[in-house]
């Protein structure tokens, strides 16, 4: 009787081990390995060329983007259409390890100015609901080149000289910030 019990227990253990193995590595380990490799390659490709994860540092995009917030840059956003006014974009330096996160306010060929803290495009004030803090920036009208976009942060309470802004070449715009 004891021997029967032992065999039954062994059978149950074997069955359990088989079930666990099937759940963890599947019926065919080689196929599972190939699937894992495909998934890793897909994730790496998406992470490198489609959705770049970024961490926002600094205060220039407050209050829209807070410090240390995690976000993504959609690198395919401008494949079928050019960047639009109001888009928050990532602008690269020599590469994508460090990027600027700014909002497009001026489009190619337009004239931009800051008067009494408000952006003026071709002499008309721009409605900017995302700017929540008062601002006193002044800047003479500036023509935006044919392949350039004027970008600025949402936090206009900073000193004019302390805030990084200006004309970005189209080639430097990596993509649109997703969230």
């Amino acid at each position, binding site marked *: 009787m004891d021997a029967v019990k032992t065999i039954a227990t062994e059978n149950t253990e074997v069955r359990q081990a088989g079930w666990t193995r099937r759940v963890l590595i599947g019926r065919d380990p*080689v196929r599972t390995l190939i699937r894992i490799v495909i998934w890793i390659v897909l994730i790496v490709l998406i992470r490198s060329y489609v959705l770049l994860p970024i961490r926002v540092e600094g205060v220039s995009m407050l209050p829209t983007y807070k410090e240390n917030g995690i976000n993504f840059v959609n690198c395919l956003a401008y494949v079928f259409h050019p960047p639009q006014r109001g888009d928050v974009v990532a602008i690269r*330096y*020599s590469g994508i390890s*460090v990027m600027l996160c700014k909002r497009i306010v001026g489009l190619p060929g337009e004239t931009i100015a800051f008067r009494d803290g408000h952006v003026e495009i071709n002499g008309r004030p721009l409605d900017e609901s995302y700017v929540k803090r008062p601002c006193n920036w002044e800047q003479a009208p500036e023509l935006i080149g044919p392949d350039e976009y004027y970008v600025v942060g949402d936090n206009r309470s900073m000193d004019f000289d302390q805030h990084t802004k200006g004309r*970005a070449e189209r080639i430097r715009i990596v993509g649109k910030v997703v969230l």
Partner: protein
Amino acid sequence: MRTWLVRLVLVGALGSMAFWAWSFLFPTPEHVIRKELAELARAASIGPNEAPLTKLAKTQKLMSFFTDDAEVTIEVPGHLTQTLSRHDDLQQAAMGARSLLNNLKVELLDVVITVGADKQSALADLTATATLPGEKIPEVQELHMSFKKADHSWLISRVETVKTLR
């Protein structure tokens, strides 16, 4: 199928080892410049409470990356505009920065190297970050560097800042 997979993995591993050995024995100009830039970043960084002798040694190490007639043009709107064109001026500026700062971490990122057709000159575009103690956000500046080949190394002949936003 398993034999085929094992063979594939073996061929891949052997290929990687051969590639690594080849690049170790015969490094390309890009590889040499990248290595030098990594050393340059280490030499430009300032450790906490460096002794005067260490400061001098690291400054001299830093200067060894430049040609005698190297020119450094720094133009940061609203902050600094300066051109240093003599070896002594560069050394003095480097020593001055070391004596002013107690701690500084320099990193050179996203290095893009273009070697000239003559293989005697090269250009490098890179992003330099400098983190001061107590500051969470580093200072970021895009740089354009020109290199000249000298014996087995490459020396920096010109450095200029790049305006990322115009």
